[in-house]
């Protein structure tokens, strides 16, 4: 039972982080058509910025010398001690770290949207972003001054760790409690952040701005000819997506406790893409479902391999994790072949303007027949208009 609670908390943590990442990629690729093959870069930069901020600010706020943040013998225990005893320092540092992670992600998004607007062909952009993500790993691995090089910056603690400490000081000890209370609190907070990101994405997508994004995705020339600033829109959406990815990185590093470049390899980007394609791009609900499925697959393979390793001593725990990556690849290929629109295909944008437009067309401005009208709209949509006329309508509205 207790194991189950921790299991659910772990799942929720990973699910929340993956959901934020998948939503941000969905905004960039699904809605705006920016093929971001370097999503892990923004995720990683968020994590590293939050970790560096926490490592420097924790001793600073506690009025202790900062010293060498990489030293595991002096600086590491100091950070843990402050984090587990003083909520007045741990939580502000956590919030500052998250804000800095978002700012860093946004700035990097702005910086990398420069080639996005400038390159002639779209495929080049995915190549450039992939290269940028690899360059990030190379730089952080080979520059120990930044974040301790290849070993990573350790000792970034869960900001709610003091909760369990408070309990163990009282008669109601943490060991009696039996489960990881700070982890559960943090999982709930990550889920809350994922919910906020989902709401923001829904609000953005189901608005005139969402329609503008789709028009840029489907036909840039048409959007440009109708007076839309395509370059500006693409820059904006890249910044928004990068801020979300940076937030996910910041949240993740406070959960996992160490910022190390091995966590930010291109395989993560691939997983996020599989989530998005599985759920259905340009559909936030679908993306949440895809993230849930893939997180279940990943966590499931980890847990099962742990169980197998416990019962069969000779079993190499990594095999199942490797096979999970193989399964992701197979899922993606099958999806691209047989269900390229994902499990829940893209639907029309739901705004007031669309409904009004439909009422006017059908000459039934009676709000009581709203439900019926929506159903008929679905039917007319599924008949399939030609792409360009759809776009022109989108932009015109």
């Amino acid at each position, binding site marked *: 039972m207790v194991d189950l609670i921790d299991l659910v908390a772990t799942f929720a943590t990973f699910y929340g982080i993956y959901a934020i990442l998948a939503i941000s990629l969905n905004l960039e*690729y699904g809605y705006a058509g920016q*093929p971001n*093959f370097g999503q892990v870069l923004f995720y990683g930069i968020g994590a590293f910025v939050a970790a560096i901020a926490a490592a420097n600010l924790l001793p600073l706020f506690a009025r202790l010398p900062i010293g060498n943040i990489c030293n595991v013998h002096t600086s590491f225990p100091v950070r843990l001690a402050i984090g587990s005893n003083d909520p007045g320092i741990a939580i502000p540092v956590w919030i500052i770290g998250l804000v800095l992670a978002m700012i860093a992600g946004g700035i990097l998004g702005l910086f990398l949207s420069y*080639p996005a607007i*400038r*390159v*002639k*062909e*779209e*495929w*080049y952009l*995915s*190549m*450039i972003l*992939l*290269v*940028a993500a*690899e*360059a990030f790993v*190379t*730089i952080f*691995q*080979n*520059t120990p001054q930044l974040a301790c090089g290849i070993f990573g910056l350790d000792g970034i603690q869960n900001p709610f760790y003091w909760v369990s400490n408070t309990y163990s000081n009282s008669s109601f000890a943490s060991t009696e409690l039996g489960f990881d209370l700070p982890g559960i609190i943090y999982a709930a907070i990550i889920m809350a952040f994922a919910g906020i990101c989902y709401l923001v994405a829904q609000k953005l997508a189901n608005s005139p701005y969402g329609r503008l994004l789709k028009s840029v995705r489907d*036909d*840039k*020339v048409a959007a440009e000819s109708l007076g839309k600033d*395509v370059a500006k829109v693409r820059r904006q959406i890249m910044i928004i997506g990068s801020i979300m990815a940076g937030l996910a990185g910041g949240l993740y590093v406070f959960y996992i406790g160490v910022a190390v470049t091995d966590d930010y390899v291109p*395989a993560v980007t*691939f997983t996020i*893409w599989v989530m998005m*394609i599985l759920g259905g791009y340009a559909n936030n609900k679908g993306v949440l479902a895809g993230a849930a499925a893939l997180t279940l697959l990943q966590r499931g393979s980890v847990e099962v391999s742990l169980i197998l390793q416990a019962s069969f001593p000779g079993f*190499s725990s*990594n*095999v199942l994790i*490797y*096979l999970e*990556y*193989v399964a*992701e*690849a*197979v899922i*993606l*290929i099958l999806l*691209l*072949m047989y269900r*390229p629109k994902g499990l829940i295909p893209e639907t029309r944008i739901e705004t007031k303007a669309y409904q009004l437009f439909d009422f006017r067309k059908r000459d039934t401005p009676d709000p009581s027949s709203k439900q019926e009208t929506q159903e008929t709209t679905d039917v007319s949509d599924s008949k399939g208009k030609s792409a360009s006329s759809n776009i022109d309508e989108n932009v015109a509205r």
Partner: protein
Amino acid sequence: MVKSMTIQAMVVFDNLVPYWVVPSIIISLAQGSIYVVASIGLTLTLAVVKLPNFAHAEFLTVGAYVGVIVSRFFPNNLLIIGSCAFLVCSVAAIAIHHIVYQPLMNRKVSIYFLVLASFAVAQFIRYVVYAWASSGSATLLVANQDIRIYTVITVFQVEISNIYVLAIILAIAVSVLLAIFLNLTHLGKSMRAIANNADLARISGINVSFAVNIMWIIAGGLGGLGGVVLGTYTSVTPVLGFDALLDIFAVVIIAGLTSFVGTIIGGYIVGFSTNTIIEALNYYFGVPFGYAPLLPFAMIVVVLMVRPTGLAPNSQTGIAWLRRAFGKGVSSGGTN
């Protein structure tokens, strides 16, 4: 008199040129040759089927592991090891084409989906190799091919091993054979015709699917050969190919995506930049060696942003296929 002048010249040479220059130039030449062999298949793929195949680097991994296994039975027999790697990788390439790429191309999916599919194929191969290598009783996650390495000649007090000589000879042989194949044989000419315009080639009576199959045999096989040579040079791991992926793409992008002469030039540019240039930067400015991959990365970004036709002069086809591939981009205006 002459002898003293020679000694004097050598002293001047030693004083002028730092100790690392000659060995690093030789390593650069060897590594550039490996890059040429490894990336010429990707150039072919880009030219003939217009596919940026991110799974190409995995042929190197597979080839290197085939080398590991075959060299257990035939140690030091480079001919058998190389031909086995060529065979296995070409079969793999044809299988991938018919199982994944051809069905997707028949469905006329967007270029992103093809890129994603090639990522998926790459991930599939890489982690199957991982699972296979870690499952046996003796783990093969870090393996070595059973090929003896010995010094062939000594130039300027630098010992040159047989692997370096082999890599350079292989690159020259592959380039010459491929040039003869593409320019003088009927099949090679039809491949170039497909690269220029597949529809026109088809209505001219060229058997496109046969030529494409041959193309995959050459592309995959050369990838495997490159992997064998790369595997003798470093130890063989499941990420051998993946680590070289962006270097290979740098070579091809410098070449303007479809130029063969450009690929040879690009291979040596990348080879020199990851060895001689980084050593020079380290010697004079103290740049860490770990930054070596950043040079090809920078080249990719700069070439794609400033001159996407590559450095080779005659590579208009690269842009042409991209136009065709996208139909409606910002620059092409969706006219063709």
